[in-house]
């Protein structure tokens, strides 16, 4: 009865396959850019620049990936990030304490996450509508706090803003012969920590697997003894908290608050998750893919700019095309694969 199939390796799961495709495409794209565009792409700093500019996007994308794996959606993340930036800037400028501002950032994110989670999980309202309302609310509050852009004047924060990690061995020699170190902002470190934490959560923790279970089949998850409501609730709380962290990282990057900060970030985060192999229908996805999803989206922007297409619409058009390409690719790959006869 027991066939010798224990010797055979299991085929890649759908998630692994999609992520692998994403990673391969990212590197192909990047190396092509190195070969054809040269310039900045030949320097490590290029990658660090992309990371520096997009640390907060990586963080919210992690949260969104969790929510999407659980079968939900959170479109408030950009607006909450913006609200956090503005609130923290105003608080710091009124003579606040940096440590308290971190708590403020986390608090705002958590508050949104808790309310969203409660409404969606316990009152069973559609996540799209709940987080759409949250998005409008956060945008509105940001504008109420200040309609004008605000720069951080706080002395202590300036040091945080300027803090960089120098990595000399990845640096390059400039045209004038000076050695320039590669530099990475603190926000990137935070983003990497978040990435690793979410990776561990999704792969090795009971809670993480519960997200997959409820996204795979909610009814089954319930029958398997998973507390579906609580699990879903937690996914939104995590997404909210990560939006808070994202806001603080955003502020550390720009040093200013603006009502239009992080506009469209939620859409980029959704796009990044999808490109990374997370399915909108839930149950499939992982955060490594999401990271490369962000990298693909942001690198393509750089490539477009470097190719001399400076107008912003070119970036949007390419990103749209990219998303389309990935969705089609995924659906073709998955349907070909699942069309095959099922293994016994």
């Amino acid at each position, binding site marked *: 009865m027991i066939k010798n199939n224990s010797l055979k390796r299991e085929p890649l799961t759908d998630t692994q396959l999609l992520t692998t495709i994403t990673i391969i495409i990212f590197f192909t794209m990047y190396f092509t850019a190195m070969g054809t565009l040269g310039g900045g792409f030949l320097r490590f700093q290029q990658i660090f620049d992309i990371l520096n500019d997009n640390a907060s996007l990586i963080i919210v994308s992690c949260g969104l990936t969790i929510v999407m794996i659980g079968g939900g959606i959170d479109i408030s993340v950009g607006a909450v990030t913006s609200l956090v930036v503005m609130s923290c800037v105003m608080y710091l400028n009124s003579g606040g304490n940096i440590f308290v501002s971190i708590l403020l950032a986390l608090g705002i994110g958590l508050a949104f996450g808790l309310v969203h989670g409660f409404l969606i999980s316990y009152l069973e309202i559609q996540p799209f509508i709940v987080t759409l309302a949250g998005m409008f609310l956060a945008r509105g509050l940001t504008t109420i706090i200040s309609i004008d852009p605000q720069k951080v004047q706080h002395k202590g924060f300036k040091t945080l803003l300027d803090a960089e990690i120098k990595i000399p061995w990845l640096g390059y020699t400039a045209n004038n012969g000076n050695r320039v170190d590669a530099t990475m902002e603190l926000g990137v470190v935070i983003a990497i920590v978040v990435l690793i934490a979410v990776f561990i959560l999704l792969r090795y923790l009971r809670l993480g697997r519960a997200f997959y279970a409820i996204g*795979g089949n909610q009814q089954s998850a319930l029958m398997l003894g998973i507390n579906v409501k609580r699990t879903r609730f937690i996914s939104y709380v995590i997404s909210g908290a990560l939006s808070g962290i994202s806001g603080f990282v955003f502020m550390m990057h720009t040093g200013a608050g603006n009502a239009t900060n992080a506009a469209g970030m939620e859409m980029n985060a959704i796009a990044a998750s999808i490109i990374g192999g997370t399915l909108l229908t839930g149950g499939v996805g992982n955060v490594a893919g999401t990271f490369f999803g962000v990298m693909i989206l942001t690198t393509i922007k750089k490539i477009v700019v470097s190719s001399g297409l400076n107008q912003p619409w070119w970036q949007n058009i390419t990103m749209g095309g990219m998303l389309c390409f990935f969705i089609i690719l995924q659906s073709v790959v998955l349907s070909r694969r699942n069309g095959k006869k099922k293994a016994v």
Partner: protein
Amino acid sequence: MDNPILLTMRHIEKRFPGVLALNNVDFTLRKGEIHALMGENGAGKSTLIKILTGVYQMDGGEVQIEGKPVVIHSPQDAQNSGISTVYQEITLCPNLTVAENMFIGREDSAWIQRKEYEKKADEILGRLEIPTRGARILGRCSLAIQQMVAIARAVDMNCKVLILDEPTSSLDDKEVNMLFKLMRDLKAQGVGIIFVTHFLEQVYEVSDRITVLRNGELVGEYPASDLPQVELVAKMIGKNLDEFSALKGSGKDVSKNGEVFYEAEELSSSQALPFDFKIHKGEVNGFTGLLGSGRSESVRAIFGADKVNGGTVKVKGEPVKITRPIDAMKHGIGYLAEDRKRDGIIAELSVRENIILALQVMNGFFKPISRSESEAFADEYIKVLQIKTASRETPVGSLSGGNQQKVILARWLLTHPDYLILDEPTRGIDVGTKLEIQKLVLKLAEEGVSVTFISSEVEEMLRTCSRLIVMRDRHIVGELTGEDLNQAQVMKTIAGGEA
């Protein structure tokens, strides 16, 4: 014989809007017994089980385990009280591995030990002789394996009470025997098993005791050895069995001189190997074979439900192209899908909306069916097929399985098809409704409708079909008519070989 009592349910009452689903029902389960819970659709079996597993809350009554009252508010409560359930529909997560499905929801630490789970899962699967492995993604296993994984999970949970709700409906004979062996092993270990099934022979094969419910009320509890099969059926449907036997052999053979309605040569699809097939006007034929023999795939090809790869098709002698379901429908072919949850009903829509669906599609969406017209259609078929529903506007999802099936049947009947394909129309529904559906099939045939009828119960096919097409390993291996239409011959053909 009288083992200590394990589970007592007393005076259980459950109301749904407009329906008293359970009225003062008692149920007793002893240690180390297999107790069959029998009844028609809507008798309250599912409701009783869902109360026991915490899916529904009872409105009155009490539950005791080993003499102590327990309160079950959620599936977790049920698990903690030692009650495990394996449902008819697979209630596992297809996107997780087999091992994860076996251990999720009951891990003892916040960290998961993937390797350890897989090792343990392989061990259990090996012991139960289930041919899969822990590291495999569940969705890549066949339905039968998925079902057995669910049982393996329950077994590993050291449950005191194991509820098997229609566990055999997607298993073939060999797998059923494996399951029965397992059930007997568990029984020997003192587990109390509640066995719900529609297969009467299976009840007698393993059960010690039988409890019968009808219309939400307890009919009685009987030792299996004291209750002949005929009496059991009588108790379940509340009428005697003359109708049951009257059905025998009424499938008329019209293949000799009748007009051919549908004919296919070398028809193949993405799922089905090329095959030839024809059906006459007013003929009832059947496809039979083991699970996975390709019987459903073949009829799906006829209907254009899977991607058709080749072959020529004639309807009433005219060559036609049927590559999509709508093509088939336009030529008067209707198809009642095997998996009604997935391919058939739209649970959120009302009975009325589900009934008019196919007709609406046939008419095209620019010719809407008026409200009063659709209400009239719905009322007519609710009456004709005796669909038990609170009203025509009740969402179909809240109806019992047999009644959902009748709604789909009504949907196709409303389009007045010339050829109706019924793929497992009686699966998971009760004896009474089965009979009604069989009678309906024969009546349709008399009216000149051609019917292809597929059922896993050979006996049922013999009663309705005048020609049986036997499939094995995705090929047609035989065609039985007249004298050859008997159980022994069918089994022989399925099994292959001349002996």
